[in-house]
C-alpha cells in the first residue's frame, strides 16, 4: 500500500510553486520552507501532535464519560461538537483519538522500517542466496491481498491497538527493503567502501557507518508517506470494528456508528468531525512527505 503512494507522488510539481532560483547550497530546511504546502502540512501536523499530547488538559470533558442525560446532543457551547449516542463529548473524544491514531501510524511504520531496513540491508550487502530469499519473500508479501490478509490475521489475533500496529508493521516492509537493498547494491562497490574494507573494517562498521547513512533519505520519505497510509488503514479497520476497540476512541472507530443510516442522516456531527480530521492529518503528512523528498533529494525533482 505504502509503495503506491510513495511512487505516486514521485514527480510532484508542488515544489515548483515556490521554486525560485536556488541560492548557493540551500540547506534542507530552507528547501523545505520554500515548499509552501509542505510548510502548511508541517504546521497542521504540529498542531495535531500538540493536541494529542495535551489532550488531558485541552479536552473539555473526559473522553469516555457516559452521560445518558446528554446523549445525541447537537453542537452547543457546552459540547462544541455535540455528543454521541452515549452522551460522550465528541470534541474530547476526537482529541484523545488523535493520540491513538497518530501513534498507530508511527509505531506500525517504525516496525516495518526496522524490518525492511534489516532485511533489505542483508539482501543488498551479502547478495547471493540471502538476496534471492529476501526478495522472493518480499514479492510474496507484495502479492498478498493486504487488507483481506490483515482482517484475517486481526480476526485470529483479536482486534486491538497492538495487533493493528503489528499486522500493518508485518505487511508493510517490502517497499522499504527494496529501497535499502537498492542503496546497498549501488554503494557496496564504491571506492570508499573498498577503501574502508582494505583498512580491515568489519562488516558491521561498513554497514552502519558507511552504507546505511546513505539509505536514510529515501527511507525517511517512504516512511512519511507510510505513516499517512497506516493512519488510513487503521481508520478503515476501526471503522469496520476490526481495529481499535471502544471505549478507547480512534478516528476510525468514531466513524463506526455512521454505518447505520439513521446516524448518518440525523447525527452528522458524529461522523463529519472525525472524517475531516483524518483527511487533515493524512493530507498534512502527505504534503510533509512531498516537501521532505524535495528538500532531502533535489535530484528526484521532475
Amino acid at each position, binding site marked *: 500500500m505504502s509503495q503506491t503512494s510513495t511512487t505516486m507522488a514521485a514527480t510532484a510539481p508542488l515544489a515548483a510553486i515556490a521554486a525560485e532560483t536556488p541560492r548557493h547550497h540551500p540547506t534542507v530546511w530552507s528547501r523545505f520552507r520554500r515548499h509552501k504546502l509542505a510548510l502548511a502540512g508541517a504546521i497542521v501536523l504540529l498542531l495535531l501532535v500538540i493536541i494529542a499530547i495535551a489532550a488531558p488538559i485541552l479536552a473539555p470533558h473526559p473522553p469516555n464519560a457516559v452521560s445518558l442525560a446528554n446523549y445525541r446532543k447537537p453542537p452547543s457551547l457546552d459540547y462544541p461538537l455535540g455528543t454521541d449516542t452515549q452522551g460522550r463529548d465528541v470534541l474530547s473524544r476526537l482529541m484523545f483519538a488523535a493520540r491513538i491514531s497518530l501513534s498507530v501510524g508511527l509505531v506500525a511504520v517504525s516496525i516495518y522500517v526496522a524490518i525492511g531496513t534489516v532485511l533489505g540491508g542483508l539482501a543488498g550487502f551479502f547478495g547471493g542466496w540471502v538476496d534471492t530469499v529476501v526478495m522472493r519473500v518480499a514479492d*510474496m508479501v507484495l502479492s498478498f*491481498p493486504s487488507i*483481506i490478509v490483515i482482517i484475517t490475521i486481526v480476526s485470529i489475533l483479536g482486534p486491538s491497538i497492538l495487533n493493528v500496529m503489528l499486522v500493518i508493521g508485518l505487511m508493510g516492509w517490502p517497499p522499504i527493503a527494496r529501497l535499502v537493498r537498492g542503496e546497498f547494491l549501488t554503494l557496496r562497490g564504491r571506492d570508499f567502501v573498498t577503501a574502508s574494507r582494505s583498512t580491515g573494517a568489519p562488516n558491521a562498521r561498513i554497514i552502519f557507518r558507511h552504507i546505511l547513512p546513505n539509505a536514510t533519505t529515501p527511507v525517511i520519505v517512504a516512511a512519511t508517506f507510510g505513516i499517512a497510509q497506516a493512519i488510513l488503514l487503521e481508520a478503515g479497520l476501526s471503522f469496520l470494528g476490526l481495529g481499535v476497540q471502544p471505549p478507547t476512541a480512534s478516528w476510525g472507530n468514531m466513524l463506526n456508528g455512521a*454505518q447505520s443510516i439513521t446516524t448518518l442522516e440525523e447525527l452528522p456531527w458524529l461522523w463529519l468531525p472525525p472524517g475531516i480530521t483524518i483527511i487533515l492529518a493524512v493530507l498534512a503528512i502527505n504534503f510533509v512527505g512531498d516537501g521532505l523528498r524535495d528538500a532531502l533529494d533535489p535530484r528526484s525533482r521532475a
Partner: protein
Amino acid sequence: MGRFLLRRIAISIPVLLGITVIMYIIVNMAPGDPVTALMNPEQMANMGPEWVEHQRESLGLNDPMPVRYLKWLKETATGNLGYSFVDRMPVNQKIGERIWPTLKLMLTVLVISVAIGIPLGIVSALKQYSFIDYLLTILGFLTVSIPSFFLALVLIYVFSLKLDWLPTSGMYTVGQPRTLWDSVTHMILPATALGLAQSAPIIRYTRSSMLETIRQDYVTVARAKGLNERAVTVHALRNALIPIITIIALNVPMLLGGTVIIEQVFSWPGMGSLAIASVQGRDYNTLMGINLIAAIMILLSNLLADVIYALVDPRITYA
C-alpha cells in the same frame, strides 16, 4: 512469446505456493478446534471423547501441519476449497456467487479511473506548471488522503439521503425487475468512492511518463520536420502510455483492498463483504479461500501487465 509466457508463469508459481504456505500457517493459528467448534455440545457429550477423537482422525486433524498442508494443497489444486465452518456450504460456491459482483465493481472503477486519469494526466503534462497542473496535483493529494469509506458516507449522505437521487446500497432494487438502468444507478456511488483515489496515481504517472517522452529525440525530430502539435502529441502518447499499464496492474491490490470496505458500506454482494462476514463468523475456511482467490487475482493482474507490456513495447524481447 510462448516461452516468455511459460517462464513468467513459472516465476509466479513459487510465489503463489509461498503465499499459500504463509496463509495456511496464519489460519492454523486460529483458536479453537474445528471438530468441537462445529459439534452440537449435547451430541458431543453423548458420543464421548472417543468419537471426537475418531472425528479428528478421519478429518486428518491429527496429522502434523506440513502433512495437513499438503493434503489441503492437493484438494485445492483439484478445485475443492472445502466447506464453510458456518453454514456447511462449499467455499467454491460461496465465493463463486460473490466473485462477479466484485469483478464488476473493480472493472467499472478501473475503466472510470483510466478514462479520467489518462486525459487529465496528458493535460497536466502538456500544460506543465500551469494553474491546471497545480490544481490536479493538489486534487491528487486530496483524493489519496480521503478515506474511501468516509467519501462513501459523504456521497450517501448527499446523493441518497438529502437529494434522494441514488440508492444507498445493494446492486439491484429488491423486488423489481433487474434493468440496466437500475444496476447503473446502484453502481455510481460505490464506483465513485473507489474511483477518485484510483485515478490520482494514473494522472500522476501519465503526466511524468508524457513529460519524459516529450523530451525524447524522436519527438523533437517530429516537431523539427514540421508536424503540427496535435500529431506530435499523438506520436508521444503512444509510447508514453506503455508504462501506465504497469501502474494500473500495480494498483489492483489497492483496488481489491478498497472494494472490501466499500462493499461493506454499500452492502454490495461481493467478495469483500463476504470476507467481513466470514471474519465476524470466524469462518476461516471461507477466509482462506477468499485470500487464495484474491492472491491469484493479484498475480494474474501482474502477469497480464507483463505480457501486455512485452506485446506493446518492441524494445522488450521475450526470448
